[in-house]
């Protein structure tokens, strides 16, 4: 009896081992390093990538002068431009929550976050009209920036 039980157990273990995919096979299912490299090789040598954005900023209502309103709106627009560049270069973290109760949406929340370090971005054009400031900003990415 003991030997028959042991034999059944042994057969079960070997059949289970046949079904389990080896760790190396699992790794193949994900993108390999080569395919990742081909995706990330956007920046080629001697080819520059230009990213252009238009940021918007609003002047506060209670300002001492139109010049102050312009200066403050421009600051806000520059920050918006930086954020837009960061979104394009490094991506956005998005998180969403929906609370549904009795088949009705009680609360819907979407949170987005961006974190990046932006260097050598240039302002191309600034316009200010009706309290809205628009800043066109561009950044030129080259292979040499990242190959240090």
């Amino acid at each position, binding site marked *: 009896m003991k030997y028959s039980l042991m034999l059944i157990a042994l057969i079960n273990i070997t059949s289970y081992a046949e079904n389990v995919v080896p760790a190396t096979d699992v790794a193949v299912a994900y993108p390999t390093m080569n395919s990742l490299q081909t995706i990330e090789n956007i920046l080629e040598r001697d080819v520059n990538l230009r990213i252009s954005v238009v940021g918007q900023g*609003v002047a506060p209502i209670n300002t001492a002068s139109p010049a102050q309103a312009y200066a403050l*709106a421009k600051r806000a627009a520059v920050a918006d431009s930086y*954020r837009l560049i*960061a979104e394009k270069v490094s991506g956005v973290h998005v998180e969403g929550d929906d609370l549904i109760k009795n088949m009705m949406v009680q609360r*819907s929340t979407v949170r987005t976050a*961006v974190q990046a370090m*932006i260097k050598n971005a240039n302002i191309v054009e600034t316009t200010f009209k009706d309290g809205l400031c628009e800043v066109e900003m561009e950044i030129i990415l080259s292979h040499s920036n990242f190959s240090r």
Partner: protein
Amino acid sequence: MRSRNGNHPFPLKLFSLIFFSSLVLNASEFLISYRYVVKNSLLYNETLQISKAMTKCSGNAYDGIILESDGKKDLQRVIANNSERFIEYVHLLGLHVNYKDETINYQNSSTTILTLKTTCFKVDFNDNFAKISPLK
């Protein structure tokens, strides 16, 4: 008068101590940080902190900016007189972008924070100009 180990004369040690400490105190190295917050497309807060470095900074100067100083040796005043140019220059040095956005029941609010982390700058005051260069 001799020092305890008897090898180095005490006045020489004292002189070198005074000399090097005076060098540190007169070193034109400043710590500068800059941060501004934009909430819902409106400028909320902006701070530019300037203080003299209390310890010697390490690194080499690069990408400096020359500002008119009119003979003044007060960096805060020099920067205040050329604030727009200096802030544009700080932008070119590189700012950390931290952006958070929240939409609750289709009502949106956002906060963008741009920061220049505390950086040591070497400042050379000439007759009418001040050269400000970050150290790296």
